[in-house]
């Protein structure tokens, strides 16, 4: 390879440096706010680095006391986990056979695209009737309602991702098993799923991420610690009158940790997932 001129090299590194700073600065600042003492946070001129660090917010958020921020946070954590995991489980149970059907049998492509289209519809198209149904069944303010409504997002998404994964499993392997007399469900369970294991894992993690990030439905259908999820609880912290910037920041850092870890782990398959619209406005 020919040697690069020095100036373009220098400009490249300068641009990279700016990119890194712009990407990291807000995140680092969020973390600094979460460990700065309150006087440091309200000092003028601003203390870019705190004189006194204060880790007590993290302890407060993770300790349950009646009517405390900690109680709200820990319950919200539980509700977020419950809603995300149960909705993901349902989406997989219904999505795996559906994706297999779309992948292995000719036709029904319009149906597949309709399913994908529903996933992209704005939630406002569904919120009112769902509200009336949940009210009728006494499900408002329950994790169950959120689990049901998250299926509108997760199920189409999981089906779409898994279909692409099943498409990549060679038909010949299944043909051989079929000749040996293995029935359809046997094929899916013992041949296709084990081969597409990695894809199923990716779809699972993406589904959890999507549910974890959801805010609109949770805002509308929950009202107290029995069902509020993390995004709603954090929005509440920020809207409260006695705002403790450090506490809000700490809650943000804690809520961001699981998805950030998952996303790093998923890096390679990230594009496939995101290109299906895995990010909610």
């Amino acid at each position, binding site marked *: 390879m020919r040697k690069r001129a020095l100036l373009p090299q220098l400009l490249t590194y300068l641009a990279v440096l700016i990119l890194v700073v712009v990407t990291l600065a*807000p995140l680092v600042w969020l973390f600094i706010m979460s460990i700065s003492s309150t006087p440091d946070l309200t000092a003028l001129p*601003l203390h870019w680095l705190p004189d006194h660090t204060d880790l007590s917010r993290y302890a407060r958020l993770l300790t349950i006391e009646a009517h405390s921020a900690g109680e709200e946070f820990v319950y919200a954590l539980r509700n977020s986990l419950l809603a995300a995991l149960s909705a993901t489980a349902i989406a997989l149970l*219904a999505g795996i056979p559906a994706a297999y059907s779309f992948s292995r049998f000719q036709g029904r492509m319009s149906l597949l695209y309709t399913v994908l289209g529903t996933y992209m519809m704005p939630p406002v*198209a569904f919120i*009112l*009737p769902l509200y009336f149904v949940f009210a009728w069944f006494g499900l408002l303010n329950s994790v169950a309602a959120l689990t049901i409504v998250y299926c509108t997002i997760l199920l189409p998404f999981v089906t779409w991702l898994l279909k692409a994964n099943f498409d990549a499993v060679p038909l010949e392997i299944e043909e051989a098993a079929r000749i040996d007399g293995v029935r359809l469900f046997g094929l899916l369970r013992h041949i296709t799923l084990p081969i597409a294991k990695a894809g199923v894992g990716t779809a699972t993690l993406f589904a959890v991420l999507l549910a974890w990030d959801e805010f609109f439905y949770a805002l509308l259908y929950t009202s107290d610690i029995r069902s509020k999820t993390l*995004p709603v609880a*954090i929005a509440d912290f920020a809207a409260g009158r006695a705002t403790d910037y450090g506490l809000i920041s700490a809650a943000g850092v804690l809520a*961001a940790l699981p998805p950030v870890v998952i996303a790093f782990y998923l890096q390679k398959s990230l594009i496939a997932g995101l290109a299906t619209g895995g990010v909610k*406005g």
Partner: protein
Amino acid sequence: MRSTGAERQAWALLVPLLAIMAVVTSYPLVNTVRLSLTDARLTGRQAAVNWIGLENFGFVFTDPDFGAAFIRTLHFTFVSVGAEILIGVLVALLLNREFAGRAIVRALLVLPLALPTIVNAIMWRLIYNPEFGSWNALLLKLGLIDAYRSWLGETGTAMNMVILADVWKNYPLVTLIVLAALQTIPRELYEAAAIDGAGAWVRFWKVTFPHILGPLTVALILRMIDAFKVFDIMYVMTRGGPADATKTVSFFVYQESFAYLRAGSGASYALVVALASGVMIAIYITMLRRQGRTA
């Protein structure tokens, strides 16, 4: 193959999906249409619900507030997505060059994407804080402002500050999609163009651009569909304010339905929003199908 048996199997596998989708999407969608033709209210035990035909839609299309919200939503959509596309492509071109630590920088770009939308909104709200925010402190230090300002509290700046926060979080999606496309361009094409004496600018438009156009268009429409339904970031950063300066159509429907409790009217506004989204979704799916056929 036994075609009827295969057909039956194919549909049988789809039963759970179809059953769930019928309950959580088809039923609500049909009922939103039904509601939009009534004067129903959101409150529990209510007086009789009256059929009022298309009366709600008469208001929808003449309501200047909704028109303004629609324009605002378009402002948010075009400016944020436009910036995301521009920055996304530039950063992708940068990351496609060779430099030490490239893998680490690429991994860093995943951070904003992974950050939950609400956490991103809170983070930027704290940064823009009019009294103690770091944005004010930074601009003051750089000499760009003489006094602290309320960036989210002024009607002239609020929308664009929200857009900045949204762009910071979402442009990496464009970068990752374009970067994947860039890496499939054969090196020989660039070498051939260089031999022909093409400069960097010409090489970009003749070689790079045609190769990334497809994926870039997909990213563009995806981001537009997503940006058009924006709600979360407004709710946390501005609550649609100041003086409705950031009240988008999703926010409008939310208020009409859940603050003013006018379910019938809210449903009619929701349908108009859904229709606009539906057009973009149809374009997206048409493109996907076309790409699927050529692939």
